[in-house]
Each structure stands twice: as C-alpha cells, then as structure tokens.
C-alpha cells in the first residue's frame, strides 16, 4: 500500500487541471502578447483564471498578479512594497515562524538598511499579538504574518492582527503568506484587512511553477522583475499560460467544495492524531487548547521521543508511506526548524519530529496504514540509538 502524506510539500495535479493545461499546451499555445487570434485565445485563459481566483477571494481580477509560485509571490510582496514605501519608513515586522521565502527576503532587506522585528509565538505557534502590535511604530511600513504555518499547521489570527496594527498605524501594509492556507481556509482579504496575499498553485493540485500575489487596489508596490511590462508592468515575462489556466481550475475546484473538503481533512487529522497520541513518547505539536478544529485541517506535526526523524521517515518510506521531517536535519548540516524552536519543542525532540499532511484525495485507509506502520516501527527503531 502507498500513502502519500506529504501534501504540504506538494500535491498531485488533478485530472481537470491536467486537461485544462493540455488544451493550452497543445491547442491554444499562443503568446498572449501577440496581436493575432492565437494571442487573443491565450489571453482568454488568463482572464478566465483571474476571474476564477477573484471569485474565491471575493476580490477584483485586477488585484491579482500571476507569479512562478509562493517564493516569488513573497519576494514580490516584501521587496516590492519595502522599496516603494521606503520614504514612509524603514521598519518591518514579521514572526519567528515564517517560511524561508519570507525570512530570507527580509534578511536581504535588512542588508539594504531596513529594520526587521521578529515577533514571538506561543507554544501552539500563534503569534503573540500584543507584542507584535507593541512593535508597530510610525516608522513601520509593513507587517508580514503567515496564515497557516507549514510545519505545524497552526492558524494565525489574521483579521485580529490586521485590525490592531492598522488602528495603531493606518499606513502599515499587511502581507499574508497564505501558501498553506489557500484552498483549505475561507480567505477574504478585503474583509480581513489584508493588503497582500501570497499563494502557490502546486499546494492545491495545480502545477508547479504557478502562483499569484493578491495586491489590494492602490497599494504602493514596485515590480521586482522588469522587462516587457506584462501584468500591467508588475510581472514582466511571457505569462506561463498553461500553468495559469491550471491554477485557475485548481482554485475553482478547491473552493467549490471547500466545506466538504475541510470536513474530510479534519476527520483524517483527528483520526491520525488520536491514533498516534495513544502511543508512548509521542507529542502532537501546534495544537492549542481549543483543539484541532482551531488548526489547519491538513497538517499534523508529531514528535517521537527516542527516534531520529530521518530514520523513521526512511523506514516509513520503505513501507510506502511518504512524510516530511519536521526539520531537515543531518549530522553534517544541522538545520533545526525555526518553528519548532520558536514554539518551545524540547531540544531532544527537534530532530525527532515528522509532518503528516493530507489532501482531498487522502483516504482513511491510508491514514490508518500510516498509523499502523508507525506503531510497528517505533519499538524496533527505539532499540537502536546513537549512544
């Protein structure tokens, strides 16, 4: 049996997405910038995708810019707004549990002279809003907080943060990395006070190399890629029409069944959490006292005392179960997860943590099989450890 439980890393492209992309690849392959009919045909796909995505966010199609994925969206949002607003101030606030594609551009901006504050989180991974709001000053131009954490699946109080930072400084822009949230959560940027929102296509059964950035109308932002002026100058480069068409289809499908999907994902998460929490020496990470319903439905982070995550990962792999290690760690290159440290996971468990993540196609049988495998493997692997 095979159980692919690494859907927070990437998902399989759906048949509907594949069919749509195939149509563009093989038939409507024109360059949207071409003046002839072939170009116009291709342009229609971009318009359609924007419409489909705008419907899911309750925004205007003109507020969307297609990118090559989550990393580019985050870079565009952070670097683009910092450069466009540097006269207004040089201070940026984020959290200690952001993804590298937020963290690294911010380090780059620090090199350019911006000051970055990293707000702490509680033991379930939720940002300490009071401390974040305290950090806001007149100099603050941008706050960036992820919607759902990629490692532990905690959900940040986005609307509350937006409200409170803007009360303190109405000029502050609010960027949200929604790469793990989009398709699994209802997101309405206008209602929630979000100015910029990053999304990736391959996390929602769309193709790799696709994504978008929502930019609220009239937001001051500069492009980071310059050239032929596509996407109204925000993102030069011939549009990746097949990927864009696929992304639109994927977004539409995810939101058409959002509530059913969420129910299914939550059921899987509850089931696996229940099975594993009964095993000795197992801790679930990122679950607040309100319980699993207050977290993202598709990510479950689990620490196994006395095990090296990489070994358990490969042992599961031998049995067809695919998961991620909580932190990419090897003896040569210790690279402990920032999130796990930030939520206070014990030192000896940092390198003993796995992430299970589900998609709409994951079945109960797969989850049960994975739990069976873990139960069998734990006592075997615990016999051998580095003395």
């Amino acid at each position, binding site marked *: 049996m095979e159980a692919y439980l690494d859907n927070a890393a990437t998902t399989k492209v759906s048949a509907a997405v594949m069919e749509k992309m195939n149509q563009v690849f093989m038939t409507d392959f024109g360059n949207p910038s071409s003046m002839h009919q072939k170009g116009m045909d291709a342009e229609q796909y971009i318009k359609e995708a924007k419409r489909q995505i705008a419907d899911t966010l309750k925004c205007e199609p003109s507020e969307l810019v297609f990118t090559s994925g989550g990393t580019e969206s985050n870079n565009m949002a952070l670097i683009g707004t910092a450069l466009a607003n540097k006269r207004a101030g040089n201070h940026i606030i984020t959290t200690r549990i952001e993804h590298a594609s937020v963290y690294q551009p911010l380090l780059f901006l620090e090199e350019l002279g911006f000051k970055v504050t990293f707000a702490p989180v509680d033991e379930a991974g939720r940002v300490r809003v009071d401390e974040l709001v305290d950090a806001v000053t007149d100099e603050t131009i941008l706050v960036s907080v992820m919607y759902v954490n990629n490692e532990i699946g905690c959900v940040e109080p986005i609307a509350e943060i937006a409200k409170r930072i803007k009360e303190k400084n109405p000029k502050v822009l609010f960027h949200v990395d929604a790469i793990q949230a989009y398709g699994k959560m209802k997101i309405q940027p206008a209602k929630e006070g979000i100015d910029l929102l990053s999304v990736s296509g391959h996390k929602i059964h769309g193709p790799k190399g696709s994504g978008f950035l929502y930019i609220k109308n009239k937001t001051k932002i500069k492009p980071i890629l310059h050239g032929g002026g596509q996407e109204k100058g925000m993102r030069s480069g011939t549009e990746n029409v097949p990927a864009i068409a696929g992304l639109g289809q994927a977004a539409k499908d995810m939101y058409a069944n959002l509530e059913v999907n969420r129910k299914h994902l939550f059921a899987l998460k509850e089931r696996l959490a229940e099975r594993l929490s009964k095993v000795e020496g197992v801790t679930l990470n990122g679950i607040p006292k309100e319980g699993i319903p207050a977290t993202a439905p598709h990510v479950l982070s689990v620490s196994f005392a006395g095990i090296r995550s*990489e*070994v*358990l*990962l*490969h*042992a*599961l*792999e*031998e049995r067809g179960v695919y998961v991620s290690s909580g932190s990419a760690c*090897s*003896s*040569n*290159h210790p690279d402990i997860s920032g999130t796990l440290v930030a939520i206070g996971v014990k030192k000896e468990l940092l390198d003993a943590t796995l992430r299970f993540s589900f998609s709409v196609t994951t079945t109960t049988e797969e989850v049960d099989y994975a739990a069976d495998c873990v139960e069998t493997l734990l006592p075997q692997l615990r*016999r*051998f450890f*580095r*003395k």
Partner: protein
Amino acid sequence: MYKAFLIKYAEIGLKGKNRHVFENILRDQIQYHLDKLGAFEVTREQGRIFVSCPEVYDFDETIEELQKVFGVAGICPVVVVESTDWDVITAEALKYVDEFYEDKNFTFKVEAKRADKRYPITSPEMCRKLGESILYKFMDQGIKVDVHDPKVRIWVEVRNKSYIYSHIIPGPGGMPVGSGGKGMLLLSGGIDSPVAGYMIAKRGVALEATYFHAPPYTSERAKQKVVDLAKIISAYTGPIKLNIVNFTDIQLYIYEQCPHEQLTIIMRRYMMRIAEKLALDSKCLGLVTGESIGQVASQTMQSLVATNAVCTLPVYRPLIAFDKQDIVTISEKIKTYETSILPYEDCCTIFVAKHPVTHPILSVIEKSETHLEEKIEEMIKEALDTIEVVQVG
C-alpha cells in the same frame, strides 16, 4: 585546421616484448573514450597511436576527453597534408607556423622523418631545407634556429601522406586502464574513496566497486550520491560494476552484541570480508580503499592492522600518505568534490561512538566478534544474496 592527433605515451614504451599488448589496450581505451564524441578512428601503426578526426568535431572537447585516458602522456594536434610533394609540404609547413604562432620571437628546430626510405630527400636534408625556408620567411619577425635547445620542435613526417605538428598538450600519464588487472574499490559517499579509485585506475587498474547501504538509517539519496560518484570516476576508469550491499542487519547486530566503542572497527572488518568475497567472485586482484593514516579513528595504523587482518587479498590504499587537503585538491580536479560533500549520512557515522577505539588490539577485537557467531554467517550470506548491482559508465 587539425585533422588528426598523434598520441605520445611514456611508460608503456618501456614494456619490452609486451609492448604491443599495452599499445593495443591504450588504443582500445582511446577508441572507447572518443566513441562518446563521434566517428574518430584510432589506429596503432609503427610504434605510435594516431587519431583521425571526423569531418566535424569539437577540438577542445576532444582534447578534454583525451586528457581523461590514462596512458596518454601527450597529445599532438597534427596538420595532415594529402601529398608527399616536397613543395606542397614546405608551403603547408610555412602556413602552419604562420597561423599557429602569432608571436614568432622564438627559437626552433625542424625534426623530420620519412617512413619510406625511397623518398628522394633524406631526413637530415629535409630538416635543413625546411629549417631554412622557415627561417628566411619569418626571421624579420624574430624567429631563430637553435638545434641544441630549441623552444619549439617542428615535426614533419612523410608517410603515404605528410604530417606536421609542433606542440604537445600534456595527457594524464599513467597506464591504460585494463593493463593492470582489476581491483575492488570500497566506495563510500565521501571525498577519499573516489579519489583512491581514480588514482589506482591511473596505474592501469580496472575497477569494480562496493557500497554499503544501511536503510532506513541511510537514505536513497545517499545511495544515489554513490552511484553518481561512480559515474563521475567511470569517465576516467571506464565502466564500473557497483555492488550495493544492504548492511543494516549486520550493523545493528554488531551494535547489540559488541562494545560500542569497537563498533566502527568491527563494522569495517565485516565490510572488508564482504568486499573480499565479492572481489574473489569477480576475479579482482586486490581491495582498494581511501584510507589515509590517522585521518579518523578507524584509520590509525593500529586500526588498519585490525581491518587488514581479515583480508587475504592485498589491500591497496593509494591515499595512505596523503594529507586531506591534497586529496581534496585531486577530488576537485576530477570533479567528484561537489558530489562528495552533499550532506547525506553514510553508514559509518550513524551509530558512531563518541570515543571510538583508536588503538584497537587485534585479540580484543577478535574476542568481541565471538559474540556474533550465532547469526553473522547467515547475515553475511543474506547480504550477499540481496546485492543490488548498478552498472555505470
């Protein structure tokens, strides 16, 4: 400009009556390498190896490939003249000097040969006549004759066609692979063992390799890394049969039964035993390792005594007296370094003790191994029965 290469070889010229055997192996090796690039014709004639190039070929790429063939001491790009007429040869030689040497401020000498002694001009005469023509043509640009210690020797050979060459691009030296038997390389994912393989192959030794895999403690990526390393060195050594041995059970058994600080040394003794069995099956004449004295606990002279004691075949350790930096320098040159430093754990480090023995006493180690008597033979058999073979190159 060049339609051919003349291959110079050094040591195999010394092999007396076996010389033709070595030359044939070298010819085959050159042919094998150049077949990857196109329809080159490699021939052995009258004590030299000659490469004829196809109509279209890439000069730099060809030189680079020839520089990977052990046994090649020098590569001479040759101008081929489709005539033996002396006036034509002279004209072509002048043209060659003019085009090849932009700066003509150097000393030279002509070295000429005729294969057919019936050719109307003798070799010394050819040298004098052509030397004179070249001197007169370019003397106002600074060219001078020096017959004792010239900067440039311009060779002219008259056979059924005529050949002109003057500069020698250095080859890797060594002996053609296959002229020295076959060795079993213990290949890990590290920096040293690929270099050891390269070095021993340079002495003409063909390679087979063995890698010890310990899933789930070592990953598929670690295994792929070793396959990739074998591929890189096969560019020099020719095809390599890589034996991948599943070592997990043996390793865990040692872990459970033997003192922990002896784990690595005992593991290495079992690796040597298994590698030797494979070596004997494949008619290898020795084991090859990347060990270097004192580099790690298992490579002290005392440890080497302990690991060496289980082998009957000789164990060749080409890096034994090399400093790490020297090994790194070679690995960079042969392009294995970037792959070697990829951070995947190998089976030697997963359970390594904090303070492994550095001065093992053979009798003590042998005594510890008696704790393994119950299952170890069966486990070795199982490991040998489940070997995965990957053919690279």
